[in-house]
């Protein structure tokens, strides 16, 4: 296999790896590539003023060294970044949480309470004969999802969209074959809808909604039913909805086959979750505290910690489009693409270290939405920007120097 391997798109949970960056034929990839134009100003900044990178790194290390309770938030980069960030968190006693951590935490909580049964893209394509999208039209955020799971299918699966206020097309066309999309609004909110569908399956005589009973019957007789949901689109009670859906899947698996395909983890979140968990033993929203590692999915959220002023320093990492540092008045060390500097507003008490985006500026790895497949990334353009991993390792080295100075004085 001598041809150069293809580009892997890092911009949505699907990590499509079959097209060149010059022609991704995906609206999301095109928009993201257009937004990450090659930078002209690569300089680091301190309080809004350009400074040499070494100086910015030194100041950042001093702040980390002095901080009593730092928060490492965002984690919006690749696997290598996460493998560098956890040793930093361990070294400085930080709390860690990802950008958009709430849906991730809710999905995790449902998993920690009840477990669940999931599947992967290849399995969906091979086996699914009924796909039910719950609460959203996932192609809005993962444009090529149905192309990926319908391509090559002789008999495409039936596709149902469950829930109110979901804008879905009436049909989709893949490889010249059109598949109808069946909408199923219920007039109920999602937690109620999920509960009613569960009821329709387990005690149909108690469920008044005929259409939900019919759907439950289709799920029961499916050869391999797949429920797709996006934790970030399930509302404030996402955890409850997911728990219900997994209860439904468990029930279906007693006699037939079903599985869930949660779509989440874009922007490096799935990778950060995996890496933090394997290194420390615990998932994100964990504190390297004086008593040991403490994991608390409710208490240790970025928004809450900043609102409560429970941390005295924010180190934020976000290299993907739309990842912006959270509001708050804490001193902050920001690692992001150079263009971010123009949109920060105030830069008091701010160190800004420009970094590259994985899969655009440099190679790397990301974990796909199913949490199973890890794909290599290749740069889409030549770039002089350092990666997050390189930058964090430089910070760690600077911290070690500070330790050495402290030890000798």
């Amino acid at each position: 296999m001598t041809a150069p391997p293809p580009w892997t798109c890092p911009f949505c949970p699907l990590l499509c790896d079959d097209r060149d960056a010059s022609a991704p034929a995906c609206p999301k990839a095109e928009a993201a590539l257009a937004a990450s134009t090659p930078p002209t100003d690569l300089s680091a900044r301190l309080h809004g003023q350009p400074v040499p990178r070494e100086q910015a790194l030194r100041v950042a290390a001093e702040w980390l060294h002095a901080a009593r309770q730092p928060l490492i938030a965002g984690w919006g980069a690749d696997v290598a970044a996460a493998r560098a960030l956890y040793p930093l968190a361990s070294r400085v006693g930080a709390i860690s949480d990802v950008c958009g951590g709430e849906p991730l935490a809710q999905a995790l909580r449902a998993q920690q309470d009840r477990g669940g049964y999931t599947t992967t893209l290849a399995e969906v394509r091979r086996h699914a004969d009924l796909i039910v999208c719950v609460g959203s039209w996932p192609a809005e955020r993962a444009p090529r999802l149905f192309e990926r799971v319908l391509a090559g299918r002789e008999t495409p699966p039936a596709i149902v969209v469950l829930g109110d206020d979901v804008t879905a097309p009436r049909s989709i066309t893949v490889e010249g074959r059109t598949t109808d999309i069946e909408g199923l609004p219920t007039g109920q909110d999602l937690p109620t809808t999920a509960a009613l569908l569960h009821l329709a399956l387990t005690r149909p005589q108690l469920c008044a909604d005929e259409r939900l009973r019919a759907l439950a019957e289709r799920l029961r007789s499916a050869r391999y039913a797949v429920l797709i949901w996006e934790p970030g689109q399930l509302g404030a009670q996402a955890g409850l909805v997911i728990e219900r859906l997994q209860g439904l899947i468990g029930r279906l698996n007693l006699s037939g086959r079903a599985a869930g395909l949660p779509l989440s983890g874009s922007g490096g979140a799935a990778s950060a979750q995996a890496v933090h968990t394997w290194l420390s033993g615990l998932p994100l929203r964990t504190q390297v505290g004086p008593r040991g590692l403490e994991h608390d999915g409710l208490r240790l959220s970025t928004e809450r910690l900043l609102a409560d002023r429970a941390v005295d320093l924010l180190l934020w990492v976000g290299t993907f489009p739309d990842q912006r540092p959270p509001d708050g008045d804490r001193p902050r060390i920001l690692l992001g693409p150079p263009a971010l500097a123009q949109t920060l507003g105030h830069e008091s008490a701010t160190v800004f270290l420009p970094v590259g985006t994985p899969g655009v500026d440099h190679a790397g790895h990301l974990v796909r939405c199913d949490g199973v497949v890890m794909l290599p990334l290749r740069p889409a353009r030549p770039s002089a920007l350092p990666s997050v991993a390189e930058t964090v390792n430089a910070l760690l080295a600077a911290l070690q120097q500070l330790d050495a100075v402290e030890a000798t004085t």
Partner: protein
Amino acid sequence: MTWTLLRGGRLHDPTNGVDGEVRDLAIQGGRLVAIPDESPTEVIDASGCIVMAGGIDLHSHIGGGKVNLARLLLPEDHRDRMGGSNPCALGDNPLELVSCGHATPGTLATGYRYVQMGYTAAFEPAMLAANARQAHMEMGDTPILDHGAYVLLGNDEHFLQRLAEGAPPEEIRDLIGWTLHATKAMGIKVVNPAGISAFKYHQRKLDVDESHVHWGVTPRQVVQALARGLTDLGVPHPLHIHGSNLGVAGNIASTLATIDALEGLPAHLTHVQFHAYGKEGPKKFSSAALQLVEAVNARPQLSIDVGQILFGQTVTASGDTMRQHANAGLANPRKWIGADLECEAGCGVVPFRYQEKSYVNALQWAIGLELFLSVRNPWQVVLTTDHPNGAPFTSYPHLIRLLMDRPFREEQLARLHPDVAANSALKDMKRELTLQEIAVMTRAAPAKLLGLTDRGHLGLGAAADIAVYRDDATDRERMFTTPEWVFKDGRVVARAGRITATPVGGTHFVTPRFDDERISEHNGGFAAALRERMARNGSVHPQHLEIGHDELCACCRGGRLLPTACFEGAAS
């Protein structure tokens, strides 16, 4: 050149026929060498100590998605007592990054805890090809330990389809060779042959001669094809088999049928404790350990590891979705994770608490010990708990004491469900394993079974991976818990239970010879088959299936790459 003298230790080095002799060892450049003429740079007094090669765990779930799922599922595993309210206490060693857990510790803690017990290598037995990068990364993030993995085959749709279509043995051989090469694996493991796939097609059980409902192939055919292909490739580690019907009463029939299916080819049967059950007695669940042992004793080409269970909380993590789904009702705490994976395999994570008062659990405990104590040749048995499935690896010292100390064993037996204690063959077993036999089961045999010629022994030229234990005949558990010194490639990495250095471990993998032409882009054969496979049963670009050496190096944190050659003269 500097060298270290390890003086006056009593050596147990079964590979070189050294059984408890007091001998000096010279360590230079990370290797064991003849005593140099010049005086040593450093002298370590090992008198009163037992010296063995570093321990090698050939079956321990230390890397890859399912272990990480277990960590996600069980935050309570990371508190002081499982489910307690306090976090695991911080260590006081600045060399250790913070990492915790009991049944599924973080990779950092996994490395530290193994090394503190005198182990210097561990092998992940169930790597998914689609998840191979992550598995290598997790192992690369397991400090100090050398590592490697067996990749799963025998449940992927392409393989089953080609087997059903009557693919010639050369094609199966090249598929195996390519899979090992692409994923940088050390061997092939088959889990519930064809059964994981069958579960996706609604089958709930699959006996050795029962047909997969869709592909029509049987587990017998799968085992035969894989064992034959590995033999033809000359891969040192034979087919690593997790058989059919794990945990089912009466599964000894499947286990013996699987052995029969091998038709004399070598194989390693893993965690056989879970596969040695009869259905005699009032509870229709009995030990079939002696039947299995009879088969193993009669076949020198077979090896086993036991998968001993020990009482307490753990979590079972397996590729065997069919069986894990069946056992999910026993989950304790009551939650479990299952998954179908990329038309290749599956994954089931079920927390479990083995209880002394449970008849079934007590019998499982006794069966494991019966297996250890009745296989005649220790070179055919490897000490494992199938970490974390039978118990966490940190319980090895306790297990060693059970095997070496009969009164201790009987004391434990007396605490169990009375029917087990009264009826088990174990109560009449007088054998106490010797230090030499323990050295075989924990170092020498695993090295031999993996084809590692310079590990697992203390001969000249071997890697200086060494564990030095203070001899303690009254409490072997204490002795094996905290060696005085542990050396990794000649460097002291633990001293009296405290980590003293954290080098990055190396990655073992095999380099099978297979028909290179067949993977050429310009050749129709294998590349076309791969493309077809991914088009129908995959979701990544075929060129992303292969992990190159540079990428492997990055995955493994720059640790050394340790390729193992295959046997010369294998069919090509």
